């Protein structure tokens, strides 16, 4: 019973976590991989670390991201 309800909850939890990430402006590796697989199947997939570094660098590279 636990196992089955845990499985049912999993998508809900990962959806919630990805919403929290997006609200805080954090990178979403899983979503990025999915996008690459769907739209650019020819490209090599970045590692989680590569993606994180590139994302963080780009996010703070121009313009203010937060207000006073």
């Amino acid at each position, binding site marked *: 019973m636990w196992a089955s309800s845990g499985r049912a909850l999993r998508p809900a939890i990962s959806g919630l976590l990805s919403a929290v990430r997006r609200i*805080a402006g954090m*990178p979403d590796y899983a979503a990025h991989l999915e996008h690459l697989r769907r739209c650019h199947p020819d490209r090599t997939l970045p590692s989680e670390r590569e993606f994180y570094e590139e994302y963080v660098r780009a996010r*703070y590279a121009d313009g203010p991201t937060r207000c006073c």
Partner: protein
Amino acid sequence: MLSRLGWLLLALAGAAAWGVLALHRGETISAAWLVLAAVGTYLVAFRFYSRFLADRVFGLNDRRATPAERLNNGRDYVPTSRWVLFGHHFAAIAGAGPLVGPVLAAQFGYLPGTIWIVFGVVLGGAVQDFIILFGSMRRDGKSLGQMAKEETGPVTGLLAMVAVLAIMVILLAVLALVVVNALRDSPWGVFTILCTIPIAILMGYWMKVWRPGRTLEASAGGVVLLMLALVGGRYVAESPVLAPLFTHSGLTIAYGMIAYGFIASVLPVWMLLCPRDYLSTFMKIGTILLLALGILVLLPPLQMPAITRFVDGTGPIFAGKLFPFAFITIACGAISGFHALVSSGTTPKMLTRESDARYIGYGGMLMESFVAVMAMCAAAVLDPGIYFAINAPLATLGGSVEAAAVTIRGWGFTVSPEQITALAGAVGEQSLLSRTGGAPSLAVGMAYIFSGAFGQGLMALWYHFAIMFEALFILTTIDTGTRVGRFMLQELAGHIWKPLGRTSWYPSIIAASALVVTGWGYFLVQGVLDPLGGINSLWPLFGISNQLLAAVALCVGTTLLIKSGKARYAWITLLPLAWVLLVTLTAGWQKVFAADPRLGFLAHAALTAQQVAEGVLDPARGARLIFNDRLDAVVAIAFMLVTVLVVLSWAREWVLVLTRRKPARVQESPFVETAYVG
């Protein structure tokens, strides 16, 4: 029919709440009326005015694919659910501004500020955010500066950029000053805030090196450590050995913050800036929800009068009459030009449907305005005597609690020295006198609300929680602001000599960072040394500059309307533009030229010169004060001049388009039909 009836009832309830606020003068009323009046007005404005803007004026079209759909790259261009994006946008626009401004403006009483916060947002701030978000969405997520350049020309774009840089310098100085006033002689506060630095670095290594990309677990760990640092602060403050190590004067803390700002701007973002950003975002959202819950559960009575005698301009916290200074002091929360930069940053790249822009742009700003109303509530639940003891400059109050109580009683509020001392003891501080800047009085108000709603006895912990949360995100603003300032300076310098424009070239990084830090650091130190407390002169300058940025944004908005053949609707931006210009130019003029030395920079310089001549003031100190007064005057004049130039250059553009000497064409991206169904 039924829904019309519902809206009518809601409108009546809001109007009734305003009536209660207006009629119950001179007696204590519940904060519930303030909240009801605000929320009722927001809902009616959102339902009717924002829909008018969306459908009639902008013509939002859900058949048109958004940048997130067309340019989806799974990274920054990502179609995002409306609610998640609302959270994202709100976290980006809400900061210390809407919390500090209303607390300071409470010196006029709670009513004038609240009216401005609520009606200013509905007709001004939310319209500005919405139209800039709309414009950026139709241009693949371009920034305000890029839009300005494309629609008018490079000179206006450059002017806008210089204006932003100047505003950043003043903004960072005044926010840093708020933190200095909260942390001076406070070992508990200093310890907790110092701890945020190693905590952030730990999180940075966690997310990059040890567990790459695991941002959520690192943030959760960071929040836990932060709470431990908060609790640990009490032991530091009570320890005779440790307390002196963390007890520092305002000047020492100011220099510490300047050094910190420089280091944070030079270090790679993953190490300090990015983890701090995550930490402060979660703390911000959590605390604002907690504050809303506390106010709604407790609905505390408002002790502050609706209108105080200080509307005549004799207020101790900042000088100047209700008009224009209430509208300058509360910038964020009613209308904030800075939002135009954020509205045109990440958010437009994440909208799934065009119609979502209404919820995010207009609705998000209403939410920020509600934060400002809550800050006003937190200030107004304080006993007015206590409020003025915390916020008035030491020179005005007199050096001791006894003298302060006498001064405050002279203003017509009752407070005893014992009350002030007892409150300081209850929140774990030596003294609360003259901690100007909003953060400490907001923290006392929040501590009062939280301990009332969630159980008594933790007053000191709640106070330091509120201080920590505000200092945390002000320091984050200082990190990001210094870095953004550095980028802008590098871009400007790149026009002069190419290598200086390379944002990864170390000599350029160090030189530009040092310049930006020196800029805001100078104003910060000047504020700390100012006998009137610094907030008195710097906050109005910040308010003026932020409102002037709003004028720039509203000009861009008006241009978009006129060029897209919607000139008959241009009043939606021209109306707030006219008001913002009237208010800021009046305030700027008064700050420079008013004959009252408390208000006018030049009059104060003349008074200081006279005091030096009479021998009552040390000449060296006098010379420094005079120089600073003149510098402030020059800054205010420069702000006004830039604004007038920007507005005139845009007005010329409008006339050219309206008289058909220039084609009415906007630079929107071409229409692409959406692939989404439903």
